[in-house]
């Protein structure tokens, strides 16, 4: 189920920078890179130490020490033999790790297609034949302890998918499909952000992965499929407005006539942890603010401002969307 609530919003927690996510892996694919990172860090510090000691001796050492550092022999040992040995070891380690991390995909993993858009993420859960069984945006739910293959695509410019606690990053390139594997070993919320400059509000293009225990995950997905939405009168008015005000031209809500594909799918928007692609907490107030004037919040994003809508309309729309769990 959902993780414990902290003093921060769930979204801020997921995106927190301390401890550094690269050193705080939550799954095997990120974990082996963390080990490599530590090895490299130690190597760098040791080599830097060697260079500094050599430089120190060259400057302030005794005559004998200086004679040892100064000479073609020292250049050969320090500049050629030593690096060649260290680098050979590192290369063998790095290549073996690359091999294990890019081992062929078996085919029985859970599959999700994530498409980069300016400046949000389209998420489609796929069945065995690659058909979308459920569509969502900006948030990915996965079961723990099981590798999930992500099909990374882009529909406009190049983006890069990066959830550092689960894996390294991989680009989303128009006209190509890149495959990436992630796996979380424990329940939690793991944040990420687009890592390839994609213009405009690239800085405000976040993403959240939520890992659930397998049984919770299954229950959640089943509930999503079977849930019927009971609307309050206010929400019902919102539903009508959603169709009339033109929202449906860009947004899809499954089971309703709203079938727009340009913007994020809003079928489950009420259950999301964030609004605006990982940047705002999701509540009635932020929803109103976003619908009314998203340009003030995320300048340059593709959603126009709706400042013409009176307050009660915004309220109604927000109530309707909030009900879409």
């Amino acid at each position, binding site marked *: 189920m959902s993780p414990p609530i902290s003093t921060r919003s769930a979204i801020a927690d997921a995106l927190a*920078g301390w401890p550094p996510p690269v050193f705080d892996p939550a799954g095997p694919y990120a974990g082996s890179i963390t080990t490599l*990172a530590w090895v490299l860090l130690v190597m760098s510090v040791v080599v830097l130490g060697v260079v500094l000691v050599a430089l120190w001796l060259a400057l302030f050492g005794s005559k004998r020490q200086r004679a040892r550092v100064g000479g073609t022999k020292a250049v050969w040992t320090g500049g050629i033999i030593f690096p060649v040995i260290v680098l050979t070891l590192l290369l063998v380690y790095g290549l073996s790790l690359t091999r294990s991390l890019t081992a062929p995909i078996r085919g029985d993993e859970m599959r999700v297609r994530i498409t980069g858009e300016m400046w949000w993420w389209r998420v489609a859960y796929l069945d065995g034949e690659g058909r979308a069984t459920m569509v969502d945006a900006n948030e990915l739910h996965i079961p723990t302890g099981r590798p999930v293959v992500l099909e990374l695509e882009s529909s406009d410019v190049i983006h890069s998918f990066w959830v550092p606690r689960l894996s390294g990053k991989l680009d989303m390139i128009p006209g190509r499909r890149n495959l990436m594997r992630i796996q979380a070993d424990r329940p939690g919320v793991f*944040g990420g952000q687009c890592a390839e400059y994609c213009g405009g509000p690239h800085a405000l293009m976040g993403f959240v992965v939520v890992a659930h225990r397998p049984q919770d995950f299954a229950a959640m997905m089943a509930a999503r499929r079977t849930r019927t939405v009971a609307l309050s009168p206010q929400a019902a008015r919102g539903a009508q407005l959603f169709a009339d005000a033109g929202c449906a031209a860009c947004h899809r809500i499954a089971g309703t006539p709203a079938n727009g594909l340009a913007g994020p799918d809003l079928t489950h928007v009420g259950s999301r942890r964030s609004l605006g692609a990982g940047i705002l907490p999701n509540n009635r107030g932020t929803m109103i603010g976003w619908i009314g004037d998203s340009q003030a919040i995320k300048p340059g994003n593709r959603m126009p401002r709706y400042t013409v809508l009176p307050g009660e309309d915004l309220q109604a729309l927000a109530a309707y969307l909030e009900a879409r769990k």
Partner: protein
Amino acid sequence: MTSETGFDPKLYDRFPTREPRPEGELEELERIWHAPTGWARLTVVNNNFIGTWYVGAAFLFFILAGVLALVMRTQLALPLQGILPQETYNQFFTMHGTVMMFLFAVPAVEALGVLLLPQMLAARDLPFPRLSAYAFWAYLVGGLSFFCSLFFGLAPDGGWFMYPPLTSIAYSPGINADFWLLGIGFIEISAIAGAIEIVVGVLRTRAPGMTLDKMPIFAWAMLVFAVMIIIGFPSIILGTLLLELERALNWPFFDPTRGGDALLWQHLFWFFGHPEVYIIFLPAAGLVSMMVAALARTPLVGYQLIVLALLATGFISFGVWSHHMFVTGMPTLSVSFFSAASMAVSVPAGIQVFSWIATVAVGKPRNNTPTLFLLGGLVTFVIGGLTGVMVALVPFDWQAHDSYFIVAHLHYVLIGGMVFPLFAAFYYWAPMMSRRALSERLGKWVFWLMFAGMQVAFLPMHLTGLMGMPRRVYTYLPGRDWEVTNMISTIGAYMIGLGVLLFVIDLARNFRFTAGDEAGNVYGGGTLEWLPTGLYSTRSIPVVKSREPLWDDPKLSDDVEAGRYFLPNSATGHRETLITSPIRAEPEYLQIMPGPSAWPLFAAIFTAGFFLLLTVQAYNPSIASGVLAVLCVLRWLWETDRPVAKAHADVGAGIILPTYATGPRTHGWWAMTVLLVVIGMIFVMAVFSYLYLYGVHPSFWTSPPDAPWLLPIIGGHAAAAGFALLARRLLARERTTLWTPATLVLIAAGFALFAFAIDWWSWRATGLTGATSGQGATVHAFLALQGILTAIVALMALYLAARNARGIVTRPRNNSMDLTVMFIAYTAAQGTLAALLTRLFPGAI
């Protein structure tokens, strides 16, 4: 002793000469090399002036781009600051990267080459002084106009790497991206011009006796640097051309929906972009090797190993471009090769670092500003090198890539590897051009502020990156723990800024340009640039017998100044320098050099005008400007390559050399060969693009024109080459009429035009247009390249005919004729290859 050219090395023993030199020689030299004054000062071509202005302009751009960095750091000091709106920030970081790389780093080292190389090699000037002037003016005028786009909100905002499709017309409809593509266009021209100059300068204008193993390390570094520009820049030239064609004419090179591919740009960009880093680093490393030895007052330890390191870096750096693409999903095996090469390229860096440390250990460096900058740069560079090894390992790069870890890494490498050595060089060589040395007291403040600022700004950035902060973000959300490290980085950035400000104050107080009464050899260097000089460079050109001639022969300065070596006078009454052989530097002939001229200046202004007017879509003024630029270039060339009254001249001690040479030994021939390598590399990259797009999207390919079309095309090219070669042969025949050789060249140009027209027509007949598909786009790119070459051929033929009509084409051999013929032959060869490739591979479908 062995000889390379038949020159007898025993003749060197005649120097230093003993006889007194005749009166008035020195005054004549001064008169001939005199620099114009007043407004005419702008027409000066002497390397002392051009070099100093060039360095100054590069430094100006360093400050401008640095100011951009400070504003960006202010924006990032705290989360969600509103100092810069997002679109302005995006322009700022794009301009910071672009200006630092293209308008500061490359021009700065090229400028130092122009300034220092002739002095170090004891040449009177670089072999093509007007080309240097042109390169400088094109760069200054174009660079300043390019920078000003920022004030109109028109600056490019696609990042310095300009990845399509973000920079394609669909996602960047404004002219901002065009500013980048065309703005970089003339900077590329300027860099190539400088590189040709440097290759020929280092290989052909060294002082006699300066064999390869006695060359100053800086000359080696500049040689590798220039060759790398020649191999690497064509890739970005082609890339910018293709992207601009896609934007302007809708040719889908990078559009996957029509058989293009976004990654093609990345390959083209990084095949230039990674060597670019070494293009910047190697000359700076050369400076370090020179200064370390001089400041430690001992010969450089491991001279040969350092030359090896420079050469190896030059090669291996062309095998690492894809390590910028580890996260694009390239095949694992491919990525691993690049990872291995990235490891290999760090070995030469290690060799240099330990050689410098060893030299310090042998010598006795003192606590002065240049030494501080050298040691500080060394430590900084080592840290950057180590993080470089880290990101060379593919899995680690998957995490670090495009995060602030990389920002930290690249600044460590570039500031430690290039900026600190450059500041050391400012302090070390300023006394060569200034009446006063720079202040040691202020200098130490400058160093400590910059060095500490560097560590404070960039060390925490590694952590910021590992904490998940991506690059190129105009802001970040609060509560993500990135506030502290970002604030520290900003403080560090301001410390660097303060250091640079102090340096500017130091310059204003102490730097006084002079070509005659300079402060001199303050730090006791042993290489030739510390010989006493005037505008004519050294009074006479010494025979070089060791790597540090000034240390090994204390009398050398006096002998040189008294004119006891080569060329103590002007042998022909013109500006002139010795052309020597490439390996052993044996004197071959005397080159007559052009003097001051306004035409390179005008040509540069019109070149910049052409590109900038094109950017703002003022097509007619742009074309007019382009035509004027070409006319100015032709006008400046018109005065060169003239018959010389005295066929031979005494260059000192009774050694007689020709004053006019033709054929493969001449500097002009070498320069044309280098230029053709550049054009050839552009062609090779186009071939790569063609094959690459076929490999990615073969389904878009359609059948080429039928094979019989090849007959007139290849026949036309063969005829063009044949008539050109015939013209060269006939020039040597006394009996041919005045007009015949030039007429033959015109006929050759006609055939080149014919072959091009048929080629173009045959594709038109298939209905494949540039906008149809990736195939159509690349085929038409080949045609466009061929069209440009053909136009140049026509121009050269007309120029030659005009010279012929005025009777200034010397017989039996003439350089203008030789170069035109070479160019025509090359054009024919490239046209043939392109026609064959596009028709036979993949062939009919």
